[in-house]
């Protein structure tokens, strides 16, 4: 399996602040990848680096085998829906489709107009008069009709109401599923894991401008456990088990532990962990590395 997106020590600095640092990733092809992290974690920076809107300060990034933005050919192979789904307010829906057709060699006019018709958008409508959900759909239509191998969406549903969110993500998945002839990889970011849970099979958690965890969703769920037991320090865990987060009451300790093997210690009650709890554990770890959960803090 080849990587559609490959970074090595990737970093981007604005002034003295690193928006993204030491990011090493391999995103396999054919997956729907969720990029989760709190606001300001560096998600947009990473995605802008991937589509070539930004240039890295440190490290390397390769998208579909080339450093972006290598050439028009590579631009044509990557579809991008930017945050807040920008469109030209003065141009009509039909104008946007023409724009896509003029600027992209592989443009699928049939797919674009079918999608617009199915969404019930009026082609003569100006994009500035569309609702947020409709505008997001228009931006997605532009991105998918160029027949990309990699589709990148930056917080596409952040500004949508819950119903529009569901419709948008459903439409996205249907569109991806419809491309039987070629495999499309999707990367979409959100600060809410609930948005991604239903659609993603691969997860990257970004917090504090660093990658906290990355991997196949099923595998992440299989290797993380929620442990509850009598109060004790997480450092007492056997080797091979890593505490991602710990919380304590007077008598009880709750740990989220990562391990490849089974947990045999009978002192713990082991239960399965939800994706949301898992992500939150990594996010809080990344957000405050200097305040790792420690026993003393809770006393």
């Amino acid at each position, binding site marked *: 399996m080849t990587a559609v997106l490959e970074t090595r020590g990737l970093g981007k600095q604005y002034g003295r602040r690193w928006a993204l640092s030491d990011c090493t990733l391999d995103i396999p092809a054919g997956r729907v990848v969720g990029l989760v992290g709190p606001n300001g974690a560096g998600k947009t920076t990473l995605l*802008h680096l991937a*589509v*070539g*809107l*930004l*240039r890295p300060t440190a490290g390397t990034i390769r998208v579909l085998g080339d450093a972006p*933005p290598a*050439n*028009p*050919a590579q*631009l*044509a192979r*990557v*579809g*991008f829906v*930017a*945050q*807040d789904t*920008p*469109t*030209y*307010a*003065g*141009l009509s829906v039909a*104008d946007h489709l*023409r*724009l*896509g057709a*003029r*600027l*992209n*060699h*592989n443009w699928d006019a049939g797919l674009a107009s079918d999608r617009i018709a199915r969404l019930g958008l009026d082609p003569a409508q100006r994009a500035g008069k569309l609702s947020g959900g409709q505008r997001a759909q228009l*931006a997605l239509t*532009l991105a998918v009709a*160029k027949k990309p191998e990699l589709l990148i969406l930056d917080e596409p549903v952040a500004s949508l109401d819950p119903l529009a969110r569901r419709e948008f993500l459903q439409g996205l998945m249907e569109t991806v599923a419809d491309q039987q002839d070629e495999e499309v990889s999707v990367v979409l970011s959100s600060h809410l894991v609930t948005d991604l849970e239903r659609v993603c099979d691969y997860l990257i958690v970004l917090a504090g401008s660093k990658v906290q965890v990355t991997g196949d969703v099923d595998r992440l769920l299989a290797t993380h456990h929620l442990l509850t037991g009598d109060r004790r320090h997480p450092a007492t865990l056997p080797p091979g088990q890593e505490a991602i987060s710990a919380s304590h009451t007077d008598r009880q300790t709750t740990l989220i532990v990562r391990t490849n093997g089974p947990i045999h210690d009978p002192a713990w009650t082991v239960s399965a962990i939800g994706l949301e709890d898992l992500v939150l554990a990594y996010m809080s770890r990344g957000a405050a590395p200097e305040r790792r959960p420690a026993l003393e803090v809770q006393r």
Partner: protein
Amino acid sequence: MTWLTWRQFRAQTVVASAGLAVLAIVLVITGPQLAHTFDTTVIGCRAHGDCTGVINALQRQDTAVQDLTRLLMYVVPAVIGLFWGAPLLARELETGTYRLAWTQGVTRVRWFGVKLVLTGLASVATAGLLSLMVTWWWSPLERVGAGRITPGEFSQGGIVIIGYAAFAFALGVTTGLLIRRTLPAMAVTLAIFVAVQLAVPFWVRPHLIPPLRSVSALNVANIQGVSIRAPGNELFVSAGPNIPGAWIYSAQVTTAPGSTDLGPSPAACGPNSGYNQCQATLARMHLREVVTYQPASRYWTFQWYETAIYLAVALVLAGFCWWWVRRRVA
């Protein structure tokens, strides 16, 4: 890319074309009348003496159109910079649509190049057409006016406005790129453009070509004023040299050896004698008139120089924008 540029620039093109068309109609209706007045009155009277009356009459014809064309020649380059140049990139950066445009199958360098070149050519063409029409319309008036090389008239015709428009446009694009917001970029563009337009006639244009210097015996008919200043009873004479259509830098009256100190005033120019006596006395003093000036024949040389300077600055700005878009932005 050409299509997108046209689509985004369509409204501006329509407005500019309509404006030029309306102006063309007005000028085509009034222009021949002006030329007719010139042919029938001014040319006839020039054969025999004083034409002041008919020239005044000609200059009072169609004053509204005269004022309009003068205004347009000043304002159009600035408007191009403000409304075509400044928003070109600032609006894309401000509304975030550059993220849409730069992730289509066209590189941002090409995207910027096509937009810049097509809109820039439209700017230059608009200014050029305007100047062509206005210069044609003004030609009778210009032949009785102060001389088209003089600072007040210089930018009212010819080709410099093409340089002004190109510069204003490139300036607008640059400020828009650096400031990234449309309205502040427009304000900064206007401020810089006005400052440059004021600075060039005063500090740049006079030095483009060294002026001519003519020294001649003072023709007493050219004397514009005689004054005597206390305490030394010094004589001062000011003269208006008669060099048709020239741009006069300075005109000084000196003594025969070349000193500007004319010495004490002769009694004939005192408060108790008449001007004719004074004039006759001055005529006998062998005074000289030293004039530094640009002759009217240098009009086109100045036009080409100044246009070339403005175009060169516009190209430098465009090159900077190209580099910035390629390397820095986003």
